[in-house]
């Protein structure tokens, strides 16, 4: 017979102010197997835990029920308490009488007490069915994969590599650098973005512990924490980078011009190209979609001019397999496609309505205009520039509900830059709120105001052309009247959204996304850089909109997490995994089909059947791969496969107890 102790927590007045705690303890004392039921003000406090330790020793308890807050909060705390008392930590069951009882039924204390007793009865029933569980260990491959070569990915890769571990960095564009490489200056210090970004790019390329795959995508991820096997697709560059010297003759001679992605469509590039002069690697790829040879079968100019014979039209995609122990997701962001929904702003038909990222290129010294602010329609200097914030952000009707967080600051920066570069120009900023939380941010904003930027609180309802100008109509909510502003250039601060393909990648890697497709962290407060799936970490804007310092901080944090994982050759695996009763298993392998982790394999067992030696196939669980979801347990008709910690026996006993 199990000897169960029940410990009911008051949680100060959190529970005790609603639930009649002594009554719950009294009721629990009559449940089968319960030898002790007591209560205490704060069970999770040191004296509270000590009370449990003493009680375990004194009453020779073999199972412990703690009725307190949600197990998601203190299950681990109390497991350690059991361990201190010499009990297996998995002989604990928690009854959630705070979140799911006291707090939810504050207005019905009687019913809350009744429910608490029921929840404790459930916990006691489960506790009496608990078995000791033991963590197994799994080996750790000390090599990390970083997906995305923007500032987040570069920082994470450098930090991990500097700690002495191998890193594989995969970037789908032909160059690393990401969005930061496109920016002109960074707020609030106004230092040159390229000046701080390009050295990082070079450091990554030159780091002996970093293997860089650009123009490559992650195709498949198998395995589990410490033991991932990833397949990387190196897209065909059509240029043999071992031969290419990056001399540039090919892209000079290439006859095809296409809009440049790097220049946000404001400039052009060739069909064989490097994204920008400081690109890493500084060697070209052929854009097969636009290349004349690939499109029409004629041309081959680059081949003819290449001094090293590096052009290889036959080159195919290459699949590379790598074993890694951890994965850092650093896939960054894209801009919300405002052209698709904002008809009132012209659906992108007016050339002088641009995005802020286009503005970054316009004002950048290495950009299409050489750093001169010229409006795209006719190359004239604008005399009046209107910035519109929250285009797609904070707009549940047309865009996203969330705040994109960086727009207030970069718009202030842009306003400041216009006023600096175009003396006499007028700058208007339409805004909903100005949010400047960050070191020296508010100061920067105030400086921009002093510079002469006109901030108008209100949304823009319409932008329409009049002559060669645009009229921006909005409402000034502070003055309570409609305003119309003539503009030569309108810059939209469009929402930050996860980079294209982020959700598909999440599915492929095995992590979850929120409703906006940003990657979900394991805990919003306590585990902000870990994904729900063990061994996968998050860095930068893929987890949510972020500015550069926050991105770099998170990337370093993710790297630190990876290094912690890599600090040992083996790690302990959760023991709540599936287990096969081979006697019951009849080898249909339905379990294998539903397992998302490929943790189930058939094995052959020999046995005696009615005097004959036979061999038969049964399922077997790799406890390192198993994550304990239990899908297999329901697929298994005879109940041969069971889940430790959530076994069929335990759940049935819980149901029985809840219905009593």
């Amino acid at each position, binding site marked *: 017979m199990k000897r169960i102790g029940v410990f009911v927590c008051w949680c100060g007045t959190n529970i005790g102010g609603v639930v009649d705690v002594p009554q719950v303890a009294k009721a629990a004392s009559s449940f089968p197997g319960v030898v002790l039921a007591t209560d205490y003000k704060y069970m999770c406090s040191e004296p509270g835990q000590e009370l449990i330790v003493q009680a375990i020793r004194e009453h020779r308890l073999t199972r412990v029920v703690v009725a307190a807050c949600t197990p998601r909060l203190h299950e681990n705390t109390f497991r350690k308490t059991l361990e201190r008392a010499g009990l297996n930590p998995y002989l604990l069951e928690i009854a959630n009488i705070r979140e799911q009882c006291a707090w*939810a*039924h504050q207005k019905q204390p009687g019913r809350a007490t009744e429910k608490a007793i029921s929840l404790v009865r459930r916990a006691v029933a489960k506790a009496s069915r608990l078995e000791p569980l033991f963590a197994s260990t799994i080996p750790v491959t000390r090599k990390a994969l970083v997906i995305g070569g923007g500032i987040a990915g570069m920082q994470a890769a450098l930090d991990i590599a500097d700690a002495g571990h191998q890193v594989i960095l995969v970037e789908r564009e032909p160059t690393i650098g990401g969005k930061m490489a496109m920016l002109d200056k960074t707020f609030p210090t106004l230092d040159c973005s390229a000046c701080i970004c390009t050295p990082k790019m070079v450091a990554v390329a030159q780091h002996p512990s970093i293997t860089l795959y650009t123009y490559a995508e992650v195709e498949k991820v198998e395995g589990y924490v410490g033991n991932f096997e990833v397949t990387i697709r190196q897209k065909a560059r059509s240029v043999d980078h071992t031969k290419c010297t990056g001399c540039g003759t090919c892209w000079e001679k290439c006859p095809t011009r296409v809009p440049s992605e790097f220049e946000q469509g404001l400039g052009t590039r060739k069909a064989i190209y490097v994204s920008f002069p400081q690109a890493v690697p500084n060697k070209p790829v052929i854009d097969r979609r636009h290349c004349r040879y690939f499109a029409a079968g004629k041309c081959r100019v680059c081949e003819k001019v290449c001094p090293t014979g590096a052009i290889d039209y036959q080159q195919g995609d290459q699949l590379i397999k790598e074993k890694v122990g951890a994965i850092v997701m650093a896939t960054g962001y894209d801009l919300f496609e405002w052209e698709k929904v904002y008809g009132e702003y012209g659906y992108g038909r007016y050339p002088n309505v641009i995005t802020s990222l286009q503005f970054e290129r316009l004002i950048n010294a290495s950009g299409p205009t050489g750093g001169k602010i010229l409006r795209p329609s006719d190359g004239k200097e604008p005399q009046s520039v209107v910035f519109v914030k929250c285009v797609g952000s904070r707009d549940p009707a047309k865009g996203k509900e969330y705040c994109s967080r960086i727009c207030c600051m970069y718009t202030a920066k842009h306003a400041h830059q216009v006023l600096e570069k175009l003396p006499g120009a007028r700058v208007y900023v339409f805004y909903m709120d100005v949010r400047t939380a960050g070191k020296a941010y508010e100061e920067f904003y105030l400086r921009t105001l002093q510079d002469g930027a006109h901030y108008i609180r209100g949304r823009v309802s319409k932008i329409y052309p009049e002559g060669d100008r645009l009229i921006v109509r909005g409402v000034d909510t502070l003055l309570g009247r409609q305003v119309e502003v003539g503009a030569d250039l309108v810059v939209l601060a469009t929402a930050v959204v996860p980079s294209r393909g982020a959700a598909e990648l999440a599915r492929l890697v095995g992590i*979850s996304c929120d409703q906006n497709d940003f990657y979900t962290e394991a805990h919003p407060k306590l585990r902000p850089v870990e994904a729900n799936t063990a061994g996968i970490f998050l860095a930068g804007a893929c987890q949510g909109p972020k500015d550069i310092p926050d991105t770099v901080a998170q990337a370093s944090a993710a790297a630190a997490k990876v290094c912690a994982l890599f600090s040992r050759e083996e790690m302990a695996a959760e023991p709540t995994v599936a287990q096969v009763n081979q006697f019951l298993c009849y080898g249909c392998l339905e379990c294998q089909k539903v397992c998302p982790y490929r943790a189930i394999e058939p094995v052959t067992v020999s046995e005696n059947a009615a005097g004959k030696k036979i061999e038969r196939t049964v399922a077997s669980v790799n406890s390192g791969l198993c994550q304990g*979801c*239990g899908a297999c347990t329901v697929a298994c008709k005879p109940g041969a496969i069971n889940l430790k910690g959530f076994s069929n026996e335990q759940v049935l006993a819980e149901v029985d107890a809840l219905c009593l």
Partner: protein
Amino acid sequence: MSLDSQWEPKIVGFCCNWCSYAGADLAGLNRLSYSPTVRIVRVPCSGRVNPAFIIRAFQRGADAVLVSGCHPGDCHYVSGNYHARRRFLVFKRLLEYVGFEGERLQVRWISGSEGAKFAQTVDELDRKIKALGPNKKMRQEPPGFSGVKDHEG
């Protein structure tokens, strides 16, 4: 089992640890008040919920069962809720076919951030079941003195 005004439904909830259980916690955290008739069994995933658990709940006197998991696409275990979805689409139809009121089995996708949806789901279910009255299908009385009857009784 009495039909008088004192009767309160007995509802067993199966909530996945990662989304719905967290959603239920959040409801409490935000002090959203909902009916205390739902009692939750924590499971790792909605894909862990065996229809036999639900059958057992009805046998033991549950008036309704709520199964709740992550939204499709959001499963912590990648695909558990997709399997659950198939299974419960079929199972719910089967229950209705043999004469259960379909409302007595509720399957809902509730994320960890949908505390309000959890509370609302529980209250709606509670209201529906109160309107339907106690479940009689498959219901057993607790075995004990009252359970002993003469065979012909």
